[in-house]
């Protein structure tokens, strides 16, 4: 695998000049992922921040063939492109090796696009799906999704006298995808750039579907200063809220274990104003519940990875 200097010299497949927010995790992740293969790629993107910010007609930031169809169907759309490729290659109309990549946010992947993703995984199309998980419907103005963490404020999980933010735990989508027993599944984070690129390389290299779920801090949605994006991503990993792991041919591998340096979840929460209400003494029980859930999932993951 190339080192970071060599990676920096490769052509940008998502050009600068797009209109994502300063400090947004999406472009960091998208660019890193697309460095995971030297082959030409065709990209499908679900409706969401990445799509609207990079293709405001008549401009486009994409230096690769790119298609946006709708919100819930990036996986089905890329299935069609990949099926077309297979046939046209067999007919000798195309001779290049082309890779297929789909991007969706957590809304487009955990929620409305889950069926489309599941179908495409089951059918075994040769493609990589990358979920850019910013834990909410940020493009439509910060509403809760099934990926929004327990206790988080959003515009549809408001904090008031009765309710104190989201009352459900985050869906474990990576495990849901792993249950499809596809060749490669991984969870990654933007702050560990080389780990992310390495995972993208693996994902592009396997035959069949591959999936990477990447946590993508969101400046307006999580409410933190824009320069802290990578620190937020790192803290999510250090608290074991967002562990880094891979599932390769059904073998679970833990990529990072902070061991005794595992930080309490409050360290991550207090960096974000969406959890501001949890800092009040009357809401400590919510933080405790979240901590319990993080610990439970972390121990469970370690067992799956043979480290329990």
């Amino acid at each position, binding site marked *: 695998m190339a080192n970071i200097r060599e990676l920096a010299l490769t052509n940008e497949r998502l050009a600068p000049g797009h209109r994502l927010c300063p400090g947004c995790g999406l472009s960091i992740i998208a660019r890193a992922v697309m460095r995971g293969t030297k082959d030409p790629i065709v990209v499908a993107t679900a409706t969401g921040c990445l799509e609207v910010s990079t293709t405001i007609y008549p401009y486009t930031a*994409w230096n690769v063939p790119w*298609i946006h169809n709708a919100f819930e169907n990036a996986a*089905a*759309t*890329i299935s*069609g*492109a990949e099926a077309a490729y297979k*046939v046209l290659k067999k007919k000798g109309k195309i001779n290049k090796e082309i890779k297929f990549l789909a991007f969706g946010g957590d809304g487009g992947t955990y929620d409305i696009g889950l069926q489309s993703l599941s179908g495409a995984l089951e059918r075994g199309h040769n493609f990589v799906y990358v979920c850019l998980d910013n834990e909410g419907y940020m493009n439509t103005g910060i509403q809760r999704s099934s990926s929004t963490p327990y206790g988080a404020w959003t515009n549809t999980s408001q904090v008031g006298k009765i309710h104190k933010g989201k009352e459900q735990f985050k869906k474990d989508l990576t495990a849901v995808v792993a249950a499809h027993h596809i060749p490669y599944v991984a969870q990654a984070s933007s702050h560990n750039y080389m780990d992310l690129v390495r995972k993208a390389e693996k994902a592009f290299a396997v035959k069949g579907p591959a999936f990477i779920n990447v946590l993508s801090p969101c400046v307006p949605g999580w409410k933190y200063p824009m320069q802290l994006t990578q620190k937020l991503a790192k803290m999510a990993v250090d608290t074991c809220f967002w562990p880094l792991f891979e599932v390769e041919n059904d073998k679970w591998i833990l990529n990072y274990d902070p061991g005794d340096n595992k930080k309490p979840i409050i360290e991550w929460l207090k960096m974000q104003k969406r959890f501001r209400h949890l800092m009040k003494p009357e809401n400590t029980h919510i933080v405790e519940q979240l901590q319990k859930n993080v610990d439970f999932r972390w121990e469970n993951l370690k067992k799956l990875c043979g480290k329990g």
Partner: protein
Amino acid sequence: MTGAECTAEAMKQINPDVVAAYPITPQTNIMHSFSQFVADGIVDTDLVTVESEHSAMSACVGASASGARAMTATSANGLALMWEIVYIAASTRLPIVMNVVNRALSAPINIHCDHSDSMGCRDTGWIQIYSENGEEAYENTIMGVRIGEHKDVLLPVMVCQDGFITSHSVETVELLNDEIVKSFVGEHTGHYPLLDVDKPVTYGPLDLFDYYFEHKRQQVLAMENAKRVIREIFDEFGQITGKHYDFFEGYKLEDAEKVIVCANSSAGTIRVVVDELREKGEKVGLLKMRVFRPWLNDMIVEKLGKIKAVAVLDRSDSFGAFGGPLFSEIRSSFHEVKEKPNIIDYIYGLGGRELDIIQIKKVFNELEQVKNGNVGDRVRYLGVRE
């Protein structure tokens, strides 16, 4: 052959690159047959057996944008589920061909024929061609490929046939040989395909108030061009087969005073009644609609302008509107015409309610009053208990 088998046969001869489909009655028989062609290696098609109709159309969009010839088929609720992407397919200017085996929309759930499904998406920007029987479904499918893919059109094409009545009824069919169809449809070359990786293109950008309207206007022009292209393709097909099709096809219209207008299989039943009544000296006729979108305003006026009384048969209702979709269209066509027939509408056959000869005779009978100027209720219901 059944109508479903005819459609599968057309698809076999077209040999599309990608077919993405999901089961729904009564469309399923098309895919049963087609899947066998795939299994036997008779076609090169990649059959993508998706997990929903929404994904069927989504995969067709992905495949067509990639430069593949893509097809699908559906009915009723399946078409309703894919509606969002049906609109996107047309707006992205992708010449997908979809066979719609007409079936009533839920609720209540019903599996039998009416046209609420395809009429429900008459404004999605698809070309719509209706088929009286299996043979026409076969021919319309083959012609549909050429129409949609024409560089001046680049629009998807919906080929409709009546659920069960056509799709499951066995009739004698005249087929073309494989080579003729192959050369008629020709090789498909995509228009700015995604798979041309050396010339990257962006499909489906965010298009706001400064450009969206112009793009919609271009779609309108494409539909306008389709009027000419459909005529050309009908003519070219006619030269091969000797069968000359039109947007609207009249039967015993010359000197006719009372005419029924309809789409799909009902035309066959009405033709029988026309013959019977003609023998008795009644001046009756039939106008069968083949193409609903694009709508040929002038032609409908030309065909019906001299008729005294016209009954439009609508196999779907438009709740709260004044009459069914076909009636509204025809009546609107005559708005600024001075000499025009008295036109009434019959909503009939919903949920597969049979249209029989007695009902058709009743319509011609009531048209006698209309002919004499006693129009009565403009919108009526045929064959319903009330």
